[in-house]
C-alpha cells in the first residue's frame, strides 16, 4: 500500500490562498501520501501565517475509516496550531456510506464546497 499508484503524484499539492491552505484530494489516498500530507500541512501552518485549512474531497469516491482518521488528525493538529480545518465538497454517496459505517466525523467542520468553506473561514475569522 505504500507504493504510489503509477500516474498519481506521490505528493498532494498544498496551495496557499492568502492565509488559507487549500488541499484537493483526488482518488485514493495511500498511507505514505497521507503521512506526507499531514507533515506538509503542519509545517506550512507553523512557518507561515495560516488561519484556515480547506480540504476538498469532491474528487474522492470513497472515504474509509483510514481516510476519516487522517482527516480528523489533520484537523486536530491544525487546531493545536490555531488554524481551522474545513472539509468541503463531500459527495452524497460518500456521506451516506460514512453514516452507514458509523463514521460521522464529529470533530470536523464541513461545507458544501470550497467556496462555502472560504466563506465560513472569513466569517469566523472576522
Amino acid at each position, binding site marked *: 500500500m505504500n507504493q504510489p499508484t503509477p500516474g498519481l503524484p506521490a505528493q498532494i499539492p498544498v496551495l496557499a490562498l492568502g492565509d488559507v491552505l487549500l488541499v484537493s484530494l483526488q482518488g485514493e489516498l495511500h498511507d505514505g501520501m497521507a503521512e506526507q500530507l499531514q507533515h506538509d500541512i503542519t509545517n506550512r501552518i507553523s512557518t507561515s501565517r495560516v488561519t484556515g485549512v480547506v480540504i476538498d474531497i469532491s474528487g474522492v469516491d470513497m472515504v474509509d475509516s483510514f481516510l476519516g482518521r487522517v482527516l480528523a488528525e489533520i484537523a486536530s493538529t491544525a487546531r493545536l496550531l490555531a488554524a481551522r480545518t474545513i*472539509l*468541503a465538497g*463531500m459527495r*452524497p454517496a*460518500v*456521506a*451516506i456510506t*460514512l*453514516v*452507514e459505517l458509523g463514521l*460521522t*466525523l464529529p470533530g470536523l467542520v*464541513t*461545507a*458544501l*464546497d470550497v467556496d*462555502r*468553506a472560504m466563506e465560513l473561514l472569513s466569517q469566523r475569522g472576522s
Partner: protein
Amino acid sequence: MSEQDAAASAPQVVSSFLEQRKEQIAQRWADAALFRSVFTISRDEAVEACKAVVDALSEVAVSGQLENVSAPGFTDVRDQLGRMAATRTRAGSTPGQIADEVARLREPVVDLLREEFADPAGPQAHESALALTLLLGTLRLVVMETALDANAELIERQRQQLLEVATPVIKLWEGTVAVPLIGTLDSARSQVVMESLLEAIVDQRARYAILDITGVPTVDSLVAQHLMKTVAAARLMGAECIVSGIRPAIAQTIVQLGIDLGSVLTRASLADALAYALSRQGIEVSRADAGASAR
C-alpha cells in the same frame, strides 16, 4: 376401449382423451364463467383459449407430472391463466371464488371421460378419472400461483411508487430545503429520504435542511436512529439539519425510550424551524404594516 388402450397407463389415457375430445371440452368450457367473462369479444376466442389450456393439460399428462405445478407443459398457458385470474380479480372475485371457478371445469371433462369407457364404473375408468381429477387440481394450483404472482408484482410496484411519491424535497427559501416525512419510516424509505435530501442540498446549495416529522405516526428507537443518520449525513455535506414537528406524545415517547437526540437540533414546528434557519442566515421577516406604523 380396445385391449391395447387398457394396457396403457392412466395419464396416457387421459392425454389421448384430451387430445381427441379437445373440441368438445373447449365448447363446454367456453360457457364457464371463468372463460366467458374474460373473452367477451367472441365465443370463438374463448374456445381457442380453452383449447390452449386443454393442449397444455394433455402435454403435462404425457410427461406424467400430474402433480407438478411447475411442469413445462404449463409454461405456454401461464400468461393466459394469469390474465384470466387478473380479470376475475378486477371483476371483484376473491381468490377463493376463482379457485372454485377453476374447480368447476372438472365436472364436464370427467363426465366426458367416463362416457369414453364401456364400463363407466370399472376400475379402468375410475383410475383415469382419478388421474384427470389430479391434473385439474394441479391446474387450479397453477392458476392460483399465477394470480398470486401477479398480485405480488403489483404490490412491489406500488411499494416502489410509494417510495418515490412520499418523499418530496421542498425548497422553502434560498438555501433552505425541507422534507415533510409522512408515514412510517423504515430502512428503505429512510434511505430514499437521505439520498433525495443530500441531492437537494447539492442542487440547491442549501445551508439548512429541515426534516419535518409531523406526519410520522410513531417514533421508536429505529426511526430515531434513521433520523440521526440523516442528520449526520446532511452535516457531512456541510448543511445544518433541523428536526421539526415533534408532537408532545412523540416527545414523551422519545424521552421514555431513553433515545438521546441531544446531538440533533429540534424545533416544535416547521414554522419554528424555518424561522431559525432564516435568522441564522440573517434574513428578517417582518409584517409590512408594522414597519409602516413605526415610521
